[in-house]
């Protein structure tokens, strides 16, 4: 009987997303976190603070910037959960369940972000 099963490992796909996410985490995430801290410190002024409504509206009304934000969320969630999945081995967890939990949550976070961004695009702009 012919088997319709993949003959190669799919691990390179996840490793690719992990590698790309690691690059995002080390190159752009520090600056993004500085922006989040600045937004928290200047949040008393809703008109002119960092990440005020006009600023975020101009990010998400632009399809390219919105896609960049999605790319950051997608790659970072796969990167972080891939690393947590593999770290679970160091604590004696060798179950296949962590595979489903890690990549399932990463996919869920990515899809939620994409869905909300599309919703906003339709609703506001």
């Amino acid at each position, binding site marked *: 009987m012919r088997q319709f099963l993949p*003959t190669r490992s*799919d691990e390179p796909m996840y490793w690719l997303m992990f590698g790309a996410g690691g690059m995002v985490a080390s190159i752009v995430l520090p600056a*993004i976190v500085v922006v989040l801290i600045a937004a928290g410190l200047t949040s008393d002024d809703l008109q002119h603070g*960092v990440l005020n409504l006009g600023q*975020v509206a101009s990010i998400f009304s632009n399809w390219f910037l919105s896609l960049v934000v999605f790319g950051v969320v997608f790659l970072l969630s796969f990167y*972080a959960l891939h*690393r947590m999945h593999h770290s679970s081995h160091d604590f004696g967890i060798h179950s296949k369940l962590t595979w489903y939990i890690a990549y399932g949550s990463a996919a869920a976070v990515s899809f939620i*972000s994409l869905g*909300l961004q599309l919703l906003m695009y339709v609703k*506001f702009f």
Partner: protein
Amino acid sequence: MSEVKSFRKPYNPPVKKMTWWLENSFYTKYMIREGTAVLALFAVLEIVFGIFMLALCDIGPIPTLSGIAPYAWYLQNFLGNPVIIALNVVVLVSQLYHAITWFALMPSAVRVFMNKNSTELLPRWIITAGLYAALAGATVVILGVAFLTV
């Protein structure tokens, strides 16, 4: 997960103590680096939560205070919360630690040859320096755009 039949028989040594990584500074540094991924996930969830709160808002031609209430709550009561600001500072430090280790290992992971006709590799410091330049460039661009367009 692929269904490829695996002939691998890994030996999984029993983990007797959950704190084994505290006994050796090399292991501790390794585990701190693994832990930076948890904080990166926290930053991602902050961003997605912000997108969610923004999507809840009601922006007409003229935004009203009640229409943008969810996003204002996110800015003032979530991002402005001293606990979250302190956590974000921890996230920032952890990501910089991750960046340093990531840039240090990258020359071992990526092998760039000097030219087609030799097996000589590009010096390690060039790859590391290029990545630090990318970090500096991305930081300048993001902070410049964020602070100059408010």
